[in-house]
């Protein structure tokens, strides 16, 4: 069994090495047709840029790094040239921004121009990266069925292992996570080879070439699957965990991956039916509304569904089941956190200070999302173009861009997932997600959900607080016999699982509101006659 596990590690490492190594190899040759098409699509008007770039890259085999460098360099030269003229022709300026130019200008050209081994051997290439990594991952986790011993809570060594206790392995993991997100969001021109590995699958599903987002979606699903197997084995004694993991995996693969791709194959808009505003912050953006409305009945249904989901379905479901039905049973961010992120859940900060930070941040993001959406709808209905300046040189498009950059990319991706091995697995869900903040209000003030504390059985050991991914100090409630009703609780159920004394139970009771949290003092300790005590004015 240990041997199988070791082989798994080796295969996984190989697949991962091929993946990373491929960023530094491969050749790209821009054909004149692709080049001209690109100039046209991107509406590039600078003759200097077109002439220089054509000379530098067309029909020449280059690495993606050189190719990208040429484009940016020529854009800089062209901009300088134009700005030095007496009359500046602003139409010919190519705006160079690190977080936009590479993905919007450079990437499409690089993507189209891949040549050589990676294009010709898609299937083998898929096997060498994803194939080996997935197989290896499964071989690493499946032997745990025997190696972990009889079913039960086996958190042995978590705080003594470098990978799960912010040691050097944890830092290396974080480095790769963060690096991947930076490339994915801002420099997809460098990850064309990994994208090629999943090209065959994309073609089979939707008929289109794979984009960086298809790569991301496929990686997301495969990582979740492998780590879901880990969850199934680790919590095989715990049916709540078993079913929850299976369901969240299903929603990711079916609703966030397969259904949208199949919709595209049928010429329908890419649509994730479970992704609700305000987490799906671009739902009310003009291009999305127009795109849906112009897609016939199905598009209109999608639009109505999206509005209903946020305004009706979500609050009703949170009332009955707490926000867990979404956050740890359906949501993609939650799904990744509960699978890939599970080994890092203990790293969340439990201090009172971090709770204060949490409340400011998450509600701040919610306010930002609502403000941005309100502005968006205002200009939409007033028929003001979104790029038009509203005040102080700011347009709605600017506000949307800031949100997309700071919240959409930096917060939810780079910090939220990239920092799993340092800050824990729910940083985005706890500090940033505006949908979580919205559901939190319902959960806190009007819901049947609570974590019931079992009378006086708590021994204050701290397992519940330690393994709470949301940084809730569960013990501080449990040890005084108070039920836990917190807006941030995502109902993962791990506090209840790790409790050695059977003190915690997630349940949906009949009482709602503040009565859920009344302390039953008598049970905690002494048989005090409470009535007589109140008379004594104690």
């Amino acid at each position, binding site marked *: 069994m240990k041997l199988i596990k070791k082989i798994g590690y080796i295969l996984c490492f190989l697949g991962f090495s091929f993946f990373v190594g491929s960023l530094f190899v491969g050749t790209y040759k821009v054909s004149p047709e692709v080049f001209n098409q690109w100039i046209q699509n991107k509406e590039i008007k600078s003759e200097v840029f077109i002439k220089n770039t054509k000379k530098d890259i067309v029909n020449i085999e280059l690495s993606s790094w050189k190719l990208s460098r040429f484009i940016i360099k020529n854009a800089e030269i062209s901009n300088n040239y134009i700005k030095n003229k007496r009359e500046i022709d602003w139409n010919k300026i190519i705006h160079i921004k690190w977080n936009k130019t590479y993905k919007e200008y450079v990437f499409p050209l690089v993507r189209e121009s891949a040549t050589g081994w990676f294009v010709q051997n898609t299937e083998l290439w898929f096997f060498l990266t994803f194939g080996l990594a997935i197989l290896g991952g499964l071989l690493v986790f499946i032997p745990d069925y025997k190696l972990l011993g009889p079913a*039960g809570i086996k958190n042995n060594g978590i705080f003594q292992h470098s990978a799960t206790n912010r040691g050097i392995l944890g830092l290396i993991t974080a480095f790769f996570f963060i690096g991947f997100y930076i490339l994915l969001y801002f420099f997809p021109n460098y990850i064309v080879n990994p994208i090629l590995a999943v090209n065959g699958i994309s073609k089979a599903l939707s008929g289109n070439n794979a984009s960086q987002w298809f790569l991301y979606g496929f990686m997301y699903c495969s990582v979740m699957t492998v780590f879901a197997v880990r969850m199934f084995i680790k919590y095989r004694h715990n049916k709540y965990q078993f079913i929850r993991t299976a369901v969240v995996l299903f929603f990711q693969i079916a609703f966030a991956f397969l259904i949208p791709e199949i919709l595209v194959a049928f010429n329908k808009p890419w649509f994730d039916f479970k992704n609700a505003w305000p987490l799906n912050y671009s739902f009310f953006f003009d291009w999305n509304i127009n795109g849906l409305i112009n897609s016939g009945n199905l598009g209109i249904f999608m639009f109505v569904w999206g509005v209903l989901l946020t305004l009706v379905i979500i609050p009703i479901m949170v009332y009955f089941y707490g926000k867990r039905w979404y956050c740890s049973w359906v949501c993609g961010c939650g799904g990744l956190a509960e699978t890939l992120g599970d080994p890092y859940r203990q790293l969340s900060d439990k201090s009172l200070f971090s709770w204060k930070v949490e409340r400011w941040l998450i509600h701040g993001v919610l306010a930002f999302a609502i403000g941005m959406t309100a502005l968006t709808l205002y200009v939409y209905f007033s028929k003001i173009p979104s790029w038009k300046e509203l005040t102080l040189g700011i347009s709605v498009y600017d506000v949307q861009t800031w949100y997309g950059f700071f919240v959409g990319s930096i917060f939810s991706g780079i910090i939220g997932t990239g920092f799993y091995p340092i800050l824990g697995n729910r940083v985005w869900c706890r500090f940033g997600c505006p949908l979580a903040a919205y559901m939190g209000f319902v959960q806190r003030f009007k819901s049947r959900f609570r974590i019931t504390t079992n009378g*006086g059985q708590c*021994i204050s050991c701290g397992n519940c607080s330690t393994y709470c991914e949301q940084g809730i100090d569960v013990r501080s409630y449990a040890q005084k016999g108070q039920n836990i009703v917190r807006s941030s609780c995502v109902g993962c159920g791990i506090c209840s699982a790790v409790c050695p004394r*059977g003190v915690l*139970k997630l349940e949906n009771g009949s009482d709602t509101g503040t009565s859920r949290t009344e302390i039953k003092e*008598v049970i905690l300790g002494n048989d005090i006659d409470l009535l007589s*005590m109140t008379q004594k004015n104690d």
Partner: protein
Amino acid sequence: MKNIVIIGNGIAGITAARHIRKKSDYKITIISAETAYFFSRTALMYIFMGHMKFEHTQPYENWFWKKNRIELLKAYVNSVNTETKELVLDNGTVLPYDDLIIATGSKPNKFGWPGQDLKAVMGLYSKQDLETITKYSKDCHRAVIVGGGLIGIEMAEMLISKNIPVTFLVRETSFWNKVLPAQESEMINQHIKEHAIDLRLETSLSKIISDENGRVKAIVTDVGETIACNLVGLTAGVSPNISFLKKSNIKLGRGVLVNRYLQTNISNVYAIGDCAEQHKSIDERNAIEAVWYTGRMMGETVARTVCGNASEYTPGNWFNSAKFLDIEYQTYGWVWAKPKKDEARFYWEHKEGKKCIHLNYNKETQQFIGINTFGIRMRHHLFDKWLKEKQSVIYVLEHLKDANFDPEFYQQHEAEILTQYNRENGTNLHPRKKNWKQIFLKG
């Protein structure tokens, strides 16, 4: 302003301090030689196993004490002078008090075994014990644990988590069978073996043998077998940690003798938690209760008394819990190892041998007396209520679904349990549907 000094920062002392602060503005000082801040002793095993770090076992953040004006003093109390109302600390400081609360807990029992003070021979009670076992487990090729109780099995779990082979010597014929009825005890025997622990029943320790460096290299059992090992856990119970009081005027038995107000023979000196001994046992309880929960209750009670509302210690219905490797155990009311003569029992065990319930009730009146539950969590407050209301065993069985506290989607066994009861007793009971109103009823 009254000056309260508490010796010991365990659950009893800390609970007392917190409740005194809630009720009063008195000056509160807590003295401990063990750690600067309160931590949960019951979690020491999880630190060793890597489930948690020491800081995670501290229920309150470090700023809590200053904010609540509870002064923490890291020192050892050498002596208590009740006439001058002063303590003498190991650093020579003389500390005056108005009210003194003794909450010094226990220390592991040692029964004069030859070699009991060798290196790598230890109990598991204090933070220092944790440091010792961490140090000596690093090069441990086999460990022997002596004593078949709760701490012994925890220590075994700790060591096997580090892949250290463990031999577990239990003097009795079956694990913890002075407390557990035979069936439960046997279930745990099997579970211990399932974890590849070398369980030796009816075996006790005769001596511990030293190597040339003064560290244990083997033990010899009472049947003359020598077992090579370089770590020995002594877990044959605990006794009150009160030797520093021997020269004081405070009356001692095995523990510090107290009345129902937790007051010693000196009126402004109290004792709570593991170190307190009741003059007369309360109900069926032991005179000395070395349990987390009772420590907490006594802390709460004494706080009321100290703050002017003299209150008796009335611990209510007995409850307790533990975890034996992977099997959780809870108990409410009394289920003795052997039924008393007016008692009858009902025992159900799941076919996989990891879950069972054992009900104890009065043969004549059918009144419910207590339940042991293994592998199934039950609601404390419902059982407490049913015990108070003197419900019958039939009522309890019929309402068992209300009491189930297992996580959602867990397999439930009430129907199976009642079928067996009906078969054995010729009754025709059916489990009542789960009723939220019943569950959340106040009181």
